[in-house]
């Protein structure tokens, strides 16, 4: 029963996210109030059903959604939408909605296409994954990825149709604020992961592919803060940096998890 409910709400979430993206797109083309309201309502609906999916999953497994790729992706899509809605309500702009909801939809669609049964499977947690450090490591990683996703969506939207939706907004400052949050979370993620790895394997840093690419991601965003002092810096450059940084984040997750072997292969 609970498994059926998870699947039903999960597929409803996918539809809600994609429909919301479509209405956000219509909204960017024509700035009509109705399509914008429908888009936001659909995003909120998808967020609610996604929350239900996560809660049911926690009930099913008896543990937090922090132990495999499926849980990470569903949690990430949930957080992307949550962060986006907070952004929309705070800055009163829907311009980044299309890309953000499209991304959230693609994340859950990926789960539905590649790992459809994983969402209702109960895999006993291997001993090495039973650690509070791991849960906090994954939780902060989702927060970091969600923030970088939002920064990239806002940036890409700004680059694509800046004149329409970002009037009177200091886009560079907004992107900066979001990346600061993501960067602090990413730093904490790496630190917590090192503590966990030290306890589990006796090695806080093994130079495995995930660790290397996390370091590269961290370096790219650190470079962003340093380049912010350059005289060539502009809103456009900041936006390009945010989009490029997120491409590396995506590779760190998808490329490393699915193409390379290492200590994070189970994730």
């Amino acid at each position, binding site marked *: 029963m609970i498994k059926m409910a998870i699947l039903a709400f999960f597929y409803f979430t996918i539809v809600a996210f994609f429909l919301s993206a479509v209405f956000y797109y219509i909204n960017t083309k024509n700035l009509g109030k109705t399509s914008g309201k429908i888009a936001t309502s659909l995003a909120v609906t998808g967020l609610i059903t996604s929350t239900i999916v996560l809660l049911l999953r926690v009930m099913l497994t008896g543990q937090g959604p922090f132990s495999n790729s499926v849980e990470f992706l569903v949690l990430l899509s949930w957080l992307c939408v949550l962060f986006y809605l907070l952004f929309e309500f705070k800055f009163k702009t829907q311009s980044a909605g299309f890309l953000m909801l499209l991304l959230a939809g693609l994340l859950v669609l990926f789960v539905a296409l590649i790992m459809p049964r994983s969402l209702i499977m109960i895999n006993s*947690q291997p001993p090495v994954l039973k650690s509070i450090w791991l849960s906090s490591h994954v939780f902060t990683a989702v927060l970091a990825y969600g923030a970088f996703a939002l920064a990239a969506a806002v940036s890409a939207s700004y680059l694509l149709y800046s004149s329409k939706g970002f009037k009177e907004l200091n886009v560079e400052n907004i992107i900066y604020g979001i990346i600061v949050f993501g960067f602090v979370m990413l730093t904490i993620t790496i630190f917590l992961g*090192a503590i966990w790895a030290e306890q589990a*394997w006796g090695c806080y840093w093994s130079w495995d592919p995930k660790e*290397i690419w996390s370091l*590269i991601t961290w370096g790219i965003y650190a470079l962003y*803060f340093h380049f912010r002092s350059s005289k060539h810096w502009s809103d456009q450059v900041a936006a390009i940096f945010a989009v490029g940084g997120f491409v590396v984040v995506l590779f760190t997750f998808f490329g490393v998890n699915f193409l390379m072997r290492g200590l994070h292969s189970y994730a």
Partner: protein
Amino acid sequence: MEFFKSFKSMQTGFTLLLLISLFASFVDVSNPSAAYSFIGFYVLVILFVINLAIYVVNKLKKIIQILKMRTESRRTLYIGLGLHLSLFAVHAGIALVFMGNMLDLSLGYNQRVEMRPGETFKLPDSNTTLKLEDFQIDYYEDGSPSQYTSKVLVIEKDKEVLHDITVNHPLKISGSKMYQESYGWRMNIEIDGGNKSKKYLVKSGEEIGLGDNKIEIIRYVPNFVHGKMREQGISGNPAVIYFIPQKDLTSAAKLGEKVKISDNEYLTFVDKQVFTVLKVKTSPGLPFVESGGAMLVIGIVLVFLLMNNKAMRFNDVYKDVSK
């Protein structure tokens, strides 16, 4: 002079960090036996640490300069000082983490120790001896392992204390740390060739050579289920899965069961012995890594908090602090 100027730059620091990451992507730097590659890695890390050290020293000078300053606004002074101290902590923290890592790779002791119950192991550079009393595997209801526990007796002079080492809960004794890394089974095997028989003690994955023939022991399973090669729980139907290449045959045999492997040879898995694998290591660089990591995280949080407080763009602050 020009070289030094460009070496101490932020661009050089980031280039070195990228090179270190790329190097580590292609070479197993955690393996000191790859000595040639390892030296190249060392050089890059040392250059990176020097680059950071130059920044840290300059920052320290700036902090001392601020401390000597007289200003009417104490708040501005404290925020400015805090910002410089935070940036100092971030860069010094990164340098400490890399230095600690290099210390561990070069001076740290790291060994995998296989022990059967009753066996002992003397810790390096100490009078402490470990004796494995027991090794236990706990299982979930579905048969998958939930925890591995090595019960070890720590013998120091006249004192003997029993400790548990489990996954995620290492034991720290006499400057060494012991981690529950793995476990395995050894099989007592008897090959009966009619008028003579031979006995072997073999681990999973090992082979027994019998003239032109051989038998590979794939694994011991505590509860064998047909069609499933994986471990299915603590009790039920213990069996050994083996492979005979010359017959291209993979099969399973119960303990004590006599298996015909050729016209006049029979194989019997007499019994099994469990062994634990502990990782024993010393980590002389760990205090540097821990303090560096803490400085890095706290420093980064403070940098952004103080910068927000100062209500200025990062580039303005950066221009200010890079003077």
